[in-house]
């Protein structure tokens, strides 16, 4: 069984304007030592999916009864959504599951040193003494490539550069030796040269620590560089998923194809950019049937608007949810 199994995750938010669907029927698995890339535009539900794994969504979040998130540890299997009290939740909030956020400046408290952050969480999640925790923290800071780790340990987040803050964030997330690491747009706020350094570091760390990673990003280039498998999300649904080579080289869902065509490519400078027509619908006006039908170039008349396509197997491990593929298959 996989390290993490998410099955039929349905998540809605109660708001003043009514109940908004954020995630609909999302299922995926992550194995130990594997990087799953979750890609999608803003509003696609990738961050709330990740936060569900730690139950970090706000209190107006409503999970449907059939949703299940199972985490397999050495001794036990944890049903994440059934955890209630904060003492039970410790296991997925920093214990077996850690998270790296997009904006490291916003994730460190400004009036607490980097070192205190790191020691505090080690004291919560491990049985280390304060002294041992401090030593381990400094060791981790060195491991992620921070110079003068002993000095940085006593500094505040504002004294570090953006790249260094993100390294410190990674060091902190990994010091508890999590089984699963959630990285939510970890390089989006960084410059390309620093991004390349951080991605390299993360690849090294997977090899060394052997954990599973859920890597969330909107950047398909980053996905190509780090992920083993990829799931493409649009408006709360996974529209296509499979091994990274298959999905990026021969995408079958019109949305994935559209995303790749809209991307400026360095080896094809003369090609015009083709935007995906239309705008992302507001969550309050969620399209019926296939959520992508309002922007889809391959829309099938009176089919796509009415019913929801299920995941069709394109090839081994490569699936996509689209009626156009189903009919192609039948014709073939």
């Amino acid at each position, binding site marked *: 069984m996989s390290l993490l199994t998410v099955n039929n995750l349905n998540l809605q938010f109660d708001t003043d304007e009514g109940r908004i669907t954020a995630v609909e029927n999302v299922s995926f698995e992550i194995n130990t030592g594997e990087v799953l890339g979750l890609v999608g535009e803003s509003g696609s539900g990738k961050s709330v999916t990740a936060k569900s794994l730690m139950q970090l969504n706000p209190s107006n979040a409503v999970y449907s009864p059939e949703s299940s998130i199972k985490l397999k540890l050495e001794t036990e299997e944890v049903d994440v959504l059934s955890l209630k009290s904060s003492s039970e939740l410790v296991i997925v909030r920093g214990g077996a599951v850690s998270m790296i956020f997009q904006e490291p400046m916003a994730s460190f408290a400004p009036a607490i040193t980097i070192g205190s952050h790191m020691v505090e969480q080690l004291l919560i999640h491990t049985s280390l003494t304060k002294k041992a925790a401090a030593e381990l923290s400094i060791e981790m800071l060195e491991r992620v490539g921070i110079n003068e780790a002993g000095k940085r340990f006593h500094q505040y987040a504002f004294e570090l550069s953006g790249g260094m803050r993100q390294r410190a964030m990674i060091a902190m997330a990994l010091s508890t030796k999590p089984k699963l690491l959630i990285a939510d747009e970890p390089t989006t706020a960084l410059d390309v040269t620093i991004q390349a350094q951080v991605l390299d570091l993360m690849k090294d760390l997977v090899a060394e620590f052997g954990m599973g990673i859920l890597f969330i990003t909107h950047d398909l280039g980053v996905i190509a560089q780090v992920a083993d498998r990829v799931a493409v999300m649009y408006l709360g649904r996974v529209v296509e998923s499979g091994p990274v080579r298959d999905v990026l080289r021969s995408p079958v869902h019109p949305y994935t194809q559209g995303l790749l065509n809209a991307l*400026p490519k360095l080896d094809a400078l003369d090609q015009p950019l083709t935007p995906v027509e239309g705008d992302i619908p507001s969550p309050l006006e969620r399209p019926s049937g296939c959520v992508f039908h309002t922007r889809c170039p391959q829309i099938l008349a009176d089919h796509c608007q009415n019913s929801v396509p299920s995941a069709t197997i394109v090839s081994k491990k490569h699936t996509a949810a689209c009626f156009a593929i189903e009919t192609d298959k039948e014709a073939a």
Partner: protein
Amino acid sequence: MTETPLIKIEKLQVEFPLGRTLFGKPLKLRAVNNVSLEIMSGQFFGLVGESGSGKTTLGRAILRAAPLSSGKINFDDGDVRYDVGSISKSDLKNYRKLAQLIFQDPYAALSPRMTVRDIIAEPLEVMGLTKTREETDKLVREIAAKCRLNLEHLRRFPHAFSGGQRQRISIARTLVCSPDFVVADESVAALDVSIQADILNLLKSLQKELGLTYLFISHDLSVVAHICDHVAVMYLGTLVESAPTSDLFTNPRHPYTRALLSAIPSLNPDDRGHAQKLEGEIPSPANPPSGCTFHTRCPMAKDICRTEIPQWRKLNDKHSVSCHFSEDLPKT
């Protein structure tokens, strides 16, 4: 594109005060250092660099929104000529009509309390360009149609719109007073990929239709490669290379340009880890390195780089670079 420069910058320096030293000597941060460049009329001129490289400050200096410490900026559109550094108050009013800015974040740039019509009309009213409300409305409707905004939407407030629509409103506001020159500062950075391509295509078609000259500031090299005719690369306040786009991307002559190009994550999953990695991070502009400012990170730095500032020199008619060893760089 004609071969006369619309904007001509010579040895521009922009400094910001940083307080004083212990002995009362004023400290300065040199955000733009000794920059000379020409933007031809009708050109789509790209300016790239990491955060802290001074690209935004340079764009603002041209618009007279940042203080000039020394050097010259000349604006010449064939009808009027301005020396932007010593422009008079009445001339500045006219210059503001001719040189405009599109902001990065379409969510922060539009007042939530004004209707779209009022937002687009505001520049006309402030600058007193129209006499009657009918005249204003006519111009607003014309530019809104050119920016592909639905005229029905003019009565609504910005909160009703998605990121891409907001950026189109923002562009309409910039162009309503029919400027010659537009600084687009990271104008697609806040947008999703599928929308980004749409805005880039819009900027390009508006350029043809209205005869605009752009300074397109971006950190995203693949976007710049697609849309710009000519690209300049900045590092720590200085220009390191400037060349026609195809030339710069196929034959970069500065180690920093090369590092930037190779740091772009490739979309090919089998092309991992071939990047020529840059060590370290961009130094603080308050305390720049001696000699060539890039020598602390440059893979080919020699002794001369630490002591002598490289000259800004022409390799050919359109390709300029500031590196001691441009000719000795290995072939790409």
